[in-house]
């Protein structure tokens, strides 16, 4: 009982939980900044720059605006961070999945949890009473709405595809662990022609969901003073920056699990080949799995976030909405239709 509790604590605080998110998320953000700089022919900041930023912000004075609701102002960032850490717990690392979450219909939970960071930032922004935050939060809501439709369509098509293949009762599955397990047995979903439009659509949803360029109208620092973050300073701001970095990790690792889930297959056999058995083998397999996941996340970040950032200019809010509900949704819908007819 105590052991179980301890185990859960380790899950939440260390491995797929907070510490893991903190380190990999910020590292991913650093790599993103470096890649963007290199694409702009600059040297760019050191890869550890987001860490410096975070710790510096922790050491700064926190100013609470006189007009703000102090409780909401300070709790909202933590709420968003907590939601993201929980979200990360639901995403398996290839074979590894927290047992308690294994059989929950997790795609739907992920969809819900993905909304909470956006809601927290809107809450925090609204509590300050700043007009910049007002504009920012209205834009943030539109962005979230715009992203949600293609995201749901992508998840539906993936779920249907796997559901049909494994002969699920309802003809569709929402269990991420089932999807990953299916890929481990019969190859990555990205190899399936009917799901390629869905993969592209998901790739395009990533920068919108994380609020990255060119879909950062909500946080446009040059026109509305970073929108909802305009009044934040010190540690709460640092937490928001951290949430943003972790969201990048969450979205990219979700992408990896949905479409590249099969790549982790060989690693277990590879470890067995070296001659390791038992606990050691499991540990090394796990370590390699995490490494592979991280490398894949970096690749997805490079393609889906950094590259898009480097080659585009910020879009207007109505353009973002139009883009997601036409181009991206059409891609996802195409995939869904193909999958529905069993292709």
């Amino acid at each position, binding site marked *: 009982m105590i052991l179980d509790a301890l185990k859960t604590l380790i899950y939440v605080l260390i491995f797929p939980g907070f510490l893991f998110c903190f380190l990999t998320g910020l590292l991913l953000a650093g790599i993103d900044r470096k890649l963007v*700089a290199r694409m*702009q022919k600059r040297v*760019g*900041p050191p890869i550890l720059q987001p860490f410096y930023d975070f710790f*510096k912000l922790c050491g*700064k004075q926190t*100013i609470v605006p006189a007009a703000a609701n102090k409780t909401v102002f300070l709790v909202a960032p933590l709420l968003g961070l907590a939601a993201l850490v929980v979200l990360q717990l639901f995403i398996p690392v290839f074979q590894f999945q927290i047992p308690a979450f294994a059989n929950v219909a997790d795609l739907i939970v992920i969809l819900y949890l993905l909304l909470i960071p956006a809601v927290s930032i809107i809450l925090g922004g609204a509590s300050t009473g700043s007009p910049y935050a007002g504009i920012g939060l209205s834009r943030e809501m539109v962005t979230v709405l715009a992203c949600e439709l293609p995201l749901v369509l992508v998840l539906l098509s993936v779920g249907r595809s796997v559901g049909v293949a494994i002969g699920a009762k309802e003809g569709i599955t929402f269990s991420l662990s089932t999807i990953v397990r299916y890929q481990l047995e019969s190859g990555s979903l990205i190899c399936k022609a009917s799901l390629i439009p869905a993969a592209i659509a998901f790739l395009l949803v990533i920068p919108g969901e994380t609020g990255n360029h060119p879909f950062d109208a909500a946080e446009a620092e040059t026109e509305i*003073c*970073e929108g909802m973050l305009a009044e934040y*300073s010190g540690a709460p701001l640092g937490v928001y920056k951290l949430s943003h970095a972790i969201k990048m990790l969450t979205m990219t690792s979700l992408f990896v699990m949905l479409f590249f889930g099969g790549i982790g297959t060989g690693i277990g056999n590879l470890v067995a080949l070296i001659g390791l058995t038992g606990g050691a083998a499991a540990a090394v397999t796990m370590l390699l799995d995490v490494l592979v996941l991280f490398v894949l996340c970096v690749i997805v970040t490079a393609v889906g976030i950094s590259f898009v950032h480097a080659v585009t200019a910020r879009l207007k809010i109505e353009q973002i909405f139009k883009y997601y509900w036409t181009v991206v949704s059409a891609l996802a819908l195409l995939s869904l239709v193909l999958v529905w007819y069993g292709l």
Partner: protein
Amino acid sequence: MFKKLIEESTGKSPWLFHINAGSCNGCDIELVSVLTPRYDAERLGFKLAGSPRHADIVVVTGPITQQSLPRVLRSIEQVPDPKCIVTMGSCPQSGNVFRGSYSVAGPLSKYVHVDVDVAGCTPKPEAVIDGLYLATQILQEKRKGMKK
């Protein structure tokens, strides 16, 4: 350990907030040129922040006109500690050619403590990097003094 980490980081991640207090735009352009690929101040962690609440270093350009004075002072107040104020170009230091005009409220040092002066009209981007680098060191010292 955290204290040391924070002190280290303070010097490596200075975010700038730029206030134009009636500048002729010359210094403003040079400040932006510091962030261009040629000089790339982001190498040293510099970043332009959109809001004074996020800033560590306030860069003031222009001779502080009567109209801008209250806004400048208010913006500087909004910056959380530790903060550093850098004047860029001759104007905020003395008024330069605008000195004595009825609409110029005089040097910035009359109202707030200025940490670093970058002289020049306008300063070369290298000189701006020099000044900002000095400001980050002052920032680090201020952070060390804060918790004692």
